[in-house]
């Protein structure tokens, strides 16, 4: 993820006037993953989830899938563990689990 100094563009390769183009994808920036400082991970209990999608709707980083079949799967490359999804869930299906309890 971290670029080596030699990999940065030369002054000729850089865009004029500090203009930075968005990456040409419809979604999160694949070059800039921001979930590294997360301490709590949201985990959904399938037995409690009523698939209302509030977690997907409220996620401030849009890092939840809109697919109800995956229980609105979290993209852990971007989730910061803020806990908004757990807070808004009406059935309390989402628990925030300490990252140290996960192997990966």
């Amino acid at each position: 993820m971290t670029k080596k100094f030699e990999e940065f563009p030369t002054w000729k390769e850089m865009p004029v006037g500090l203009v930075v183009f968005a990456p040409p994808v419809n979604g999160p920036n694949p070059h800039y993953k921001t979930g590294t400082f997360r301490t709590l991970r949201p985990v959904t209990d399938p037995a409690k989830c009523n698939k209302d999608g509030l977690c997907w709707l409220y996620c401030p980083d849009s890092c939840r899938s809109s697919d109800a079949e995956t229980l609105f799967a979290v993209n852990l490359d971007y989730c910061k563990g803020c806990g908004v999804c757990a807070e808004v869930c009406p059935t309390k299906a989402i628990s925030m689990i300490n990252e140290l309890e996960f192997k990966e």
Partner: protein
Amino acid sequence: MKRVGLSGNYAVAYAAKMADVDVIAAYPITPQTTIVEKLSEFVANGELEAEYINVESEHSALSACVGASLTGARVFTATSSQGLAYMHEVLFMASGLRTPIVMANVNRALSAPLNIWNDHSDAMAERDAGWIQLWTTSAQEAFDATLEAFKIAEEVLLPVMVNLDGFILSHTYEPVILPDESLVKEFVPSKPMVNRVSPKFAYSIGVVGPPEIYYEMKYQVVDAIENSRKKIKEVNKEFCSRFGREYRFVDAYMMEDAEYALVTMGALTGTARAVANGLRKEGERVGVVSIRCFRPFPKEDIVSILEDAKGVGVMDRALTPGGPSNPLFAEIATALYDITRRPLLQSFVAGLGGRDVTADDFKAMFGLVKDVVKEGRPRPCVYVGLRE
């Protein structure tokens, strides 16, 4: 084409109008005020279709200009002295973001003590801001330089500051030849510039440049202003072919065989030339060198014009307290450092805060340059007209 009586400020306002600017954001300050006053009149009368943004400060004025310029608009502002100083941090953003803003700076002394009169301390304090700086010596030159500025700025994507001396030029009425608007439009056509804040694209502007990025970005400005020399030369040439007035980076007056010369900037050049004329009649081989383009600095022209002179006086109208020399002298000395046979340089300071510099003062300066050549070494900086 018509010949009209205009003040230096009105000449600049007419140039901005004829260049059909899209956005004007400015805050009034003496002696600049009548430029934006006239432009607001043009907008109010429907003679100029432009967005005229009234702002609460010069800092906001230039900030608004940067934003407007990023949308691809042709942008103009004007200021003086404290106003330019208040724009200081935004000046560097304008060049770093490569916004082709044109600004008239009506030169005025910096406070304290409060002083509304003319010297060059405002512009000299901003010489490292990455702006192209043009200097003018008449209302006609102010008009012409403003027109050229739009073309230069938009070609090289750098902001251009057109300097004219407060009151001496800004409020003095002179005959000015105004070209037909159609000819001006051919010279500076409204071309669609890139809209860098279009919602059609996802861009980030004004981002953080960490240590891995900042250096390269700043070098882009260095490269752009170095390359602007070529473009300025081309614009001067095209201006001459269309309007018949020829401009160079440096105006050399009677320098072909000159032994002694005085380097000046701005409106006092006229007095220096008149004095040089008189001295020539007395058999003195004197000339006057006036810098029209201060940034990029015309090092090569300075070398070729001055290398054969015996003595050169440099007249600064700004101070560098505690420095080894004052700003213009430092530039001239640096330009001549690399050549083996160089003229003896004498530093002068004159005309601070609007103090008159008379023909007798210029005569004395020429005389002193001749004296120090005889003595073989320059004297410490001479503060012309200072009560001691």
